[in-house]
């Protein structure tokens, strides 16, 4: 039995009353999570924290004030049950087998044992559960909120990791610049269903698409090796899970059946990993059962080891890309091809050089790009393209910097 003496105080004004469920959210042999109205507390969300002996009805419930917004968030999987319970002050209520709430206590939330609450990130039902949850820990935890830059990074890192792996699994060559095919974007640009800011946590769900819904280009021509959508998705997520297992194991050789695959896996999981010197100290990755991801806590030390391992693999394979750094001015962006030309500043050579932006990076480049083209300022552009590309092949933009 839960010993609650040190984190509760009796509610003196309490008088026994019926705990009549109004809306039942979770039921297994009895309502276990439900709303009810209590005379002195109003509308509350009740959560069965300790069932009665031998499965008798009733038990001990946590109760928290609730409202329509919170309930809608619970139903849609935007809020975990734990977050709902920690949303406001809490009471502990004992309900007997007849459905009468006999006793109630105030709870000192600061002393509430964390292990009596639902696990973090757990939704009302498995259907609402994200396929993958990323949880970030950073050094300077502030009660005021989460650094905006971290939110942007966290939201983008996982789709970027998937993009690397999907391109490998589907054997899509080239630099990835320009507009990606819609079906490819549908695969990796997955939905974030929930963002919690108590410590930054983002839940993602896999697209629930059947092959026919991806469009003709996918099923008829683009994937000539005949892989179905489901197979591609399973393989990609498995590679991600293998990569995360490797990343947190500290072993040196990335998993994979070829060096190209090892590089793809290592590059993908490093998108998710905390940078060696950044503000994030660790990233927890939690995959849903059956997702092939598992549970991992990626620390900075893992990142360092993985970077060294990736470098070793890259040393073994011929260079895939050639890089360039170009100074000059940019006038305009070709919106159709997402290309632009860097022209030399007077007195600094005559060579022009064409670059192309990866569409998914367009948002991050767009403001800087607009500012530089309007002012015709000098910029430095770092780019790369596959080795052996023809002279007309544009370089893919890696960095776009003011001079």
């Amino acid at each position, binding site marked *: 039995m839960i010993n609650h003496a040190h984190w509760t105080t009796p509610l003196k004004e309490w008088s026994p009353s019926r705990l009549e469920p109004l809306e039942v959210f979770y039921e297994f042999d009895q309502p276990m999570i439900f709303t009810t109205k209590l005379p002195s507390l109003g509308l509350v969300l009740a959560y069965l924290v300790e069932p009665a002996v*031998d499965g008798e009805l009733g038990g001990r419930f946590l109760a928290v004030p609730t409202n329509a917004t919170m309930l809608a968030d619970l139903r849609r999987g935007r809020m975990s049950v734990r977050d709902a319970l920690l949303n406001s002050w809490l009471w502990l209520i004992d309900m007997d087998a007849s459905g009468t709430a006999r006793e109630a206590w105030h709870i000192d939330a600061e002393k509430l044992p964390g292990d009596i*609450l639902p696990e973090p990130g757990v939704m009302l039902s498995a259907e609402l*559960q994200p396929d993958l949850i990323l949880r970030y820990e950073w050094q300077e935890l502030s009660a005021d909120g989460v650094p905006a830059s971290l939110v942007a990074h966290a939201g983008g890192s996982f789709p970027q990791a998937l993009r690397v792996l999907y391109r490998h699994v589907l054997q899509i060559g080239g630099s990835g610049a320009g507009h990606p095919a819609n079906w490819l974007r549908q695969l990796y640009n997955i939905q974030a269903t929930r963002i919690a800011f108590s410590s930054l946590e983002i839940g993602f769900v896999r697209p629930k698409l059947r092959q026919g819904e991806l469009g003709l280009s996918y099923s008829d021509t683009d994937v000539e090796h005949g892989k179905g959508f489901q197979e591609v998705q399973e393989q990609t997520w498995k590679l991600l899970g293998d990569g995360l297992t490797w990343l947190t194991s500290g072993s040196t050789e990335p998993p994979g059946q070829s060096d190209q695959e090892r590089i793809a896996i290592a590059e993908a999981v490093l998108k998710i990993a905390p940078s060696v010197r950044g503000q994030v100290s660790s990233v927890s990755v939690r995959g849903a059962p059956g997702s092939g991801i598992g549970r991992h806590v990626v620390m900075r030390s893992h990142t360092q080891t993985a970077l060294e391992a990736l470098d070793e693999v890259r040393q073994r394979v011929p260079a895939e890309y050639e890089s360039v750094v170009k100074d000059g001015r940019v006038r305009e962006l070709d919106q159709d091809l997402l290309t632009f030309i860097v022209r030399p500043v007077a007195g600094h050579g005559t060579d022009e050089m064409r670059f192309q932006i990866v569409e998914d990076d367009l948002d991050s480049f767009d403001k800087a790009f607009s500012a530089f083209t309007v002012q015709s300022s000098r910029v430095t552009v770092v780019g790369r393209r596959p080795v052996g590309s023809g002279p007309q092949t544009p370089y893919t933009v890696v960095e776009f910097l003011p001079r």
Partner: protein
Amino acid sequence: MRTMVGSSLSSIEQTKAPHLWNNGRMACPPESSVDPSGRYYRWCAYGNQDGAHYRTFEEVGTRRDADQCLRRALSLLSDVRAAIQHIRLFPSHGYRFVMRIDFQGDEGKIKATSGRVPSHTSWWPQDGLGPQDRAKLFSIEAEVP
């Protein structure tokens, strides 16, 4: 035919003994219930085959005011994800193991009784298949850390 440890299921089948109980006005298990097949899940604390965890409310002697037919059934889930979800949703209840049962068709009757958990299924064990026998039909599917 599979041998049921400690049960008299074989003799039941030979004699075609009915496992319909009369619940006042309605048959129990319900006429809409079916022979069980496929894989189902339940959870327990220790992952062992202790029959105490496989007793119906009627056998325990609780829920006397509940539906008398459901008191004779055990709750199962057909979706392993939902079983894992339950353990994570209620960690203070002390369950750590998802147990699975692969029905062969002769263990009684089942019926989908989904309420707020869509894969919820009620299992009315065959006559003579006691709690300890039921426990031996389950094996560990997963340990939820």
